[in-house]
């Protein structure tokens, strides 16, 4: 009996010693060491290269005390500041330009590129593990990093074109009817003033393309955005960092131009976008790979046509007066995007009441009062005033009472 237990203990302790030895062996061969050896080999091929003499394998980190950040990206991205590595493959290649004005020892990497600066494996550092927030920002969205600190005033418009396009689309799609930015906007959806500190780009992008994907049961309508549109809006939203998260918050200050506020009511949008070309592409969040965005046809040149500064982006004035004369209530209903909030039949959102049978329950006069001044008819309601002309109200009412 005693001998048996002594044997069991002996065998178990041998296995344990083996396991610990194996653990120590794996621990002494971290994945990044492989990259560093490869880098030393590459650097040795390039004559007169100082880095070739550097052969210690170690974690390389940049501490930015003011931002409370630690970036260990240079552990693998070894050639970023070495001009001789311009032709080397990732992760060893030289950083293109910009590092003179943004010395990495002062700013680190993740402040522009996102990702999880403290991690030293690819999946974790690029934020690809489940539940991680710091996700590596793809090239197409990098202008938001420039814009977050510099705004658009000091940069050539082409550098932040995708952000400017996002601002334009936010005004066009009237996001602020439901969402708030810096205290301006509606209260139906969440405040987006610091959305980038709460959600990473994958989450924002997926939410724009399929709102119920990120927040199940979300009442946000599916606007049928094209991927390029979602990219642009995400690019702007990624600039919405929280307090203390921008370099400018702690190092120096650049006044950021304000976003155009809630669009004035009479600047509402008609649909010169035919329904056909915004049919949502049935995008499941699973198949949105970072590559998708890069492949979008939003090369900076495309959008830079107008000289866009956020201040002068008034929502596009596509007047629904164009639908006149003899207002067709049904077309006006569609043109005003009422179905974003209201459902008629199978189509429409869930923010406002279902209007499929509105003609049964409501009189024409009541509807007319409501459309003229929603705040008086429903003091606690969320429906914004659209400042419609009398003829427009009449056309809408004529259409609504037919819904029975």
């Amino acid at each position: 009996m005693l001998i048996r237990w002594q044997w069991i203990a002996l065998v178990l302790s041998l296995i344990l010693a083996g396991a610990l030895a194996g653990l120590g062996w794996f621990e002494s061969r971290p994945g990044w060491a492989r990259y560093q050896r490869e880098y030393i080999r590459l650097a040795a091929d390039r004559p007169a290269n100082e880095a070739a003499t550097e052969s210690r394998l170690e974690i390389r980190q940049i501490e930015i005390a003011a931002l409370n950040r630690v970036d260990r990206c240079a552990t693998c991205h070894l050639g970023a500041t070495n001009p001789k590595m311009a032709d080397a493959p990732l992760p060893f290649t030289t950083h293109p330009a910009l590092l003179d004005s943004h010395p990495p020892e002062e700013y680190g990497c993740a402040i522009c590129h996102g990702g999880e600066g403290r991690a030293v494996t690819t999946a974790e550092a690029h934020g690809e593990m489940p539940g991680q927030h710091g996700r590596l920002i793809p090239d197409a969205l990098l202008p938001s990093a420039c814009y977050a600190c510099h705004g658009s005033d000091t940069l050539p418009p082409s550098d932040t074109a995708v952000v400017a396009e996002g601002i334009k689309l936010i005004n066009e799609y009237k996001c602020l009817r439901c969402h708030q930015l810096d205290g301006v906007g509606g209260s139906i959806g969440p405040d987006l003033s610091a959305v980038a500190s709460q959600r990473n780009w994958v989450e924002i992008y997926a939410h724009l393309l399929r709102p119920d994907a990120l927040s199940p049961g979300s009442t946000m309508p599916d606007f049928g955005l094209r991927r390029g549109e979602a990219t642009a809006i995400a690019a702007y939203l990624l600039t919405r960092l929280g307090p203390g998260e921008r370099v400018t918050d702690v190092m120096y200050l650049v006044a950021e131009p304000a976003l155009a506020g809630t669009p004035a009511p009479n600047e509402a949008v008609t649909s010169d976008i035919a329904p056909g070309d915004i049919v949502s592409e049935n995008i499941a969040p699973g198949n949105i790979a970072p590559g998708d965005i890069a492949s979008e046809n939003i090369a900076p040149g495309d959008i830079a046509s107008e000289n866009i500064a956020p201040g002068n982006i008034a929502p596009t004035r596509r007047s629904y007066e164009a639908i006149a004369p003899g207002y067709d209530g049904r077309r006006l209903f569609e043109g005003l995007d009422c179905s974003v909030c209201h459902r008629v039949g199978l189509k429409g959102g869930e923010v406002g009441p279902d209007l499929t049978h509105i003609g049964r329950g409501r009189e024409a006069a009541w509807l007319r009062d409501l459309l003229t001044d929603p705040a008086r008819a429903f003091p606690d309601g969320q429906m914004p005033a659209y400042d419609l002309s009398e003829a427009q109200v009449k056309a809408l009412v004529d259409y609504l009472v037919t819904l029975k």
Partner: protein
Amino acid sequence: MRTFLDIPARVWDSFHREPHTHRPRRHPLRMIDNLFLHVHPNRVSPISLRPTTTLGLGLITASFFIILVVTGVLLMFYYVPAVPEAYERMQDLIYVVRLGRVTRDLHRVAAEGMVVAVFLHALRAFYTAAYKPPREFNWLVGLALLTLTLALSFTGYLLPWDQLAYWAITVSTGILSYYPLFGEPVRELLLGDRSVGQEALLRFYVLHVFFLPAITFGLIGYHIWRTRKDGGLAAQDHTGGARASNAPRAESRLQPGRRSPAKASTPAGISEEPITAYPLLLWIEIAVFLAVLLVSLGIAIAFPGRLDALANADHPPNPSKAPWYFIGLQELVSYSAAWGGVVVPIAVLVVGVLLPYVDRDPRGAGRWFAPERRGVIALASAVVIAWLAFTFIGAFARGPNWVFYWPGQPWPGPG
């Protein structure tokens, strides 16, 4: 020369306060005279040592506790209970500290393991009726240790300060506010605030690394000492031979003259005569401890824990789930806050506490699933199965907004 060669043996002897000897009659002194070993009995019944008697669950629980203390102290060298340094320290620990990730995972696995083992240990005590006189009070000590284990695991759950931790604690402490009168004050006392924040982190940390472990350590010692004083394991009450310990006979506190009818059930072939505990018991303990450590280490390496995004009070994940041992409670609360959150748990607790003082019938004590106890066993089993079912539903079949989804059925969204 010989003087020097003998030094190890002399150190070994001096440690034992007795010269080393292989004479079995001296063995009891090894246990008695040693501060660390004297919680052991001198002599132990072979029945107690049979694996099927207790399944070794008490020993396994204690092994987990030792692993937790050691890894916990190691983790304390790196951890800072502050917002948001706690999270950054966790990142550094798992990303770059040598053996940091496996230390953290070993601590996590051992903590979950201890919760499971302590539950199973309590079930073993119930199903073998080990709570019957004279062991009523040790059953209460055991219940207190079960509660302390849950509290330790729960307070530790918050410390990584990621989304998972933050919202699990928010949801669980939210259940407290369903309790009338004292619920809200207790919750605020625990959190130091109206919601989970810096104060809660500091309080949970102090509870987790000092207060609760100190009480648990003391109570474990008392629990083991009491087991010995109450006459060893209930299973050996029915041996005919001399008793294994110096405790008063269990029967002396029962009705006089009444001997246990279970005597006949002692299987033939095993000597009922108690044997000297040293050194066999120690070797068994060493082997079980090594096995527990090895299995925990294997699980810790094979299934590394995750560290979610930094805790964010504005963005609850949907669904937010409590730690798994409270998910059954959360599932009950989703049906009815008052019944599921207050009445049912308190009823189960009260029944558990009163059980040994109500069920004093000595029949069946020390035997698995004694047929005489059919009724109470069926009742308790129903409660356990229901609790497991609720936990399973809550953990695997609840999606966003606590809506039911079959396990494996896709949730809307990225999951």
